[in-house]
């Protein structure tokens, strides 16, 4: 029996976790969430989940590979002193369970054996399709002892579209050349209602804040279209954008590694190409 840790039944990553769980045990998949009116507590929720696990005796416990999922499962693993494999893309039951998981933010895969029962796993986001059929989430009671709890939520007002949620993202890399150079990127983004992103070289150079950074250590995005301008395609950047459904790369170097992952390629200098695209969009929409 596979136990899936969940928060909301309509959450896409929960549905993906269900698909993953069904691949291990097609018949016996249960979902459990934590009923905690006081809000999120990583250790508190893990204690509750551990109790459910001990009561119900699953062979595998699966969580979504979100910040929270990884955190809660890590706590469960620490409490039970069992191994945990984060961001798996597939698993085969057995003694021991074998799995394939993600390294380097997705640029490398690891095949491993997990020597422990129950097996504790989280599912790499977008590694599998979301299950159309949901499973009702049973709510377990919160644990009374919780050391760490969120004490308040500070809302931040984002100007424009949030990078993590945007349907289209236009990013600039080293090739932009300066903070002012991003004006052409911002122009195109505005025309498309897109968010503006950047590579790590750009944040290190101080041209844009870290909140704009797309990458393994920045924001991981999954837009319908990612337009990467003047970005060569280092693995740690690609780790941040591999969730994109389509990738368009604009780069003067026809040998840049980003083209190996791109759906569409434009060979050219972004300072010439991007304004031309903006102009063409305006022309097509009519009215200059």
């Amino acid at each position, binding site marked *: 029996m596979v136990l899936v840790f969940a928060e909301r039944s309509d959450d896409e990553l929960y549905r993906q976790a269900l698909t993953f769980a069904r691949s291990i045990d097609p018949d016996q998949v249960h979902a459990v969430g934590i009923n905690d009116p006081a809000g999120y507590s990583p250790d508190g929720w893990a204690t509750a989940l551990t109790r459910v696990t001990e009561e119900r005796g699953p062979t595998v416990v699966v969580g979504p590979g979100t910040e929270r999922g990884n955190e809660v499962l890590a706590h469960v693993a620490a409490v039970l002193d069992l191994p945990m494999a984060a961001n798996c893309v597939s698993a085969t039951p057995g003694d*021991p369970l074998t799995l394939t998981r993600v390294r380097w933010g997705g640029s490398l*895969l690891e095949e491993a*054996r997990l020597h422990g029962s129950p097996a504790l796993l989280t599912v790499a986001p977008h590694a599998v399709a979301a299950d159309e059929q949901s499973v009702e989430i049973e709510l377990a009671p919160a644990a009374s002892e919780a050391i760490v709890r969120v004490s308040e939520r500070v809302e931040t007002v984002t100007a424009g579209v949030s990078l*993590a949620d945007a349907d289209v993202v236009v990013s600039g890399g080293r090739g932009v050349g300066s903070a002012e150079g991003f004006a052409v990127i911002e122009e195109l983004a505005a025309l498309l209602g897109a968010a503006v992103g950047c590579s790590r070289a750009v944040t290190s150079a101080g041209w844009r804040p870290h909140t704009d950074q797309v990458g393994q250590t920045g924001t991981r995005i999954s837009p*319908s279209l990612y337009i990467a301008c003047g970005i060569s395609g280092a693995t740690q950047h690609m780790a941040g954008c591999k969730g994109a459904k389509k990738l368009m790369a604009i780069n003067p170097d026809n040998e840049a590694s980003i083209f190996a992952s791109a759906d*569409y390629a434009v060979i050219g*200098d972004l300072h*010439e*190409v991007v304004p031309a695209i903006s102009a063409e969009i305006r022309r097509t929409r009519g009215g200059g």
Partner: protein
Amino acid sequence: MNILVCVKRVPLTGGKIVLTDDERAISTRHLGFTVSPHEECGVEEAVRLIEQHGGSSAVLTLGPPEAEEQLRDMMALGIDRAVHLVADGEEWDPQATANAIVDAIRSQSEPFDLILFGNESADAGNYQVAVRVAHKLGLPVVTGIKGIAVGDSQLRLEQEVPGGRDVYVIPTPAVVTVKEGLNLPRYPSVPGRLRAKRKPLDTSTPARPEPMLEMIKLTLPPDSGKQAQVLGNGADAAPAVVTVLDELGLL
């Protein structure tokens, strides 16, 4: 304050990853090395907190003999001393790593008020060593932090979530994992580097237990088989681009 930062030596991979012949490691020939990005921000934060509140700091790594380079680099930023758990060439799984770190912490003469980790290491990305260490030491742990403020025997921590920031207030001593963006690490000065060469470095060679999460081999993700459709060269490609945008329904 007495602060410990745990770091890991990772290669700088570039545009593509190449594996060794036995497919159990990345081929690091001709690759440079660095400290995992999240962790470097942790080191910078430790140095800043000591500058503000006084005290001392240490950096620790479980890694090969070459990892001394990373320890000296971090001491060049201002960390006072280093602990090197010298690992053999093999991989250490998260539990073994956490246990070795806990043993090293317990054998320190002074307890730490704050133990910092990166949210996840750039290479293995297991997301769990810090949590395990915290449980073994009986300390509270918060992950993914982008803002730290030190109060009276407590910490106010900020974590980025969609729409804003979640705030945690926890007592010290504690374990915190941080994310890049917490701060902008300073560029080391040369006097700092020269001093770091002589700062104290404690080495020990823990024995590696059998792995519970046992890596069998590494593989490259399957080639998407994508062949990028070349829309054109330079500004002349603009009409083709707009056609694509239209087809995708994004215009």
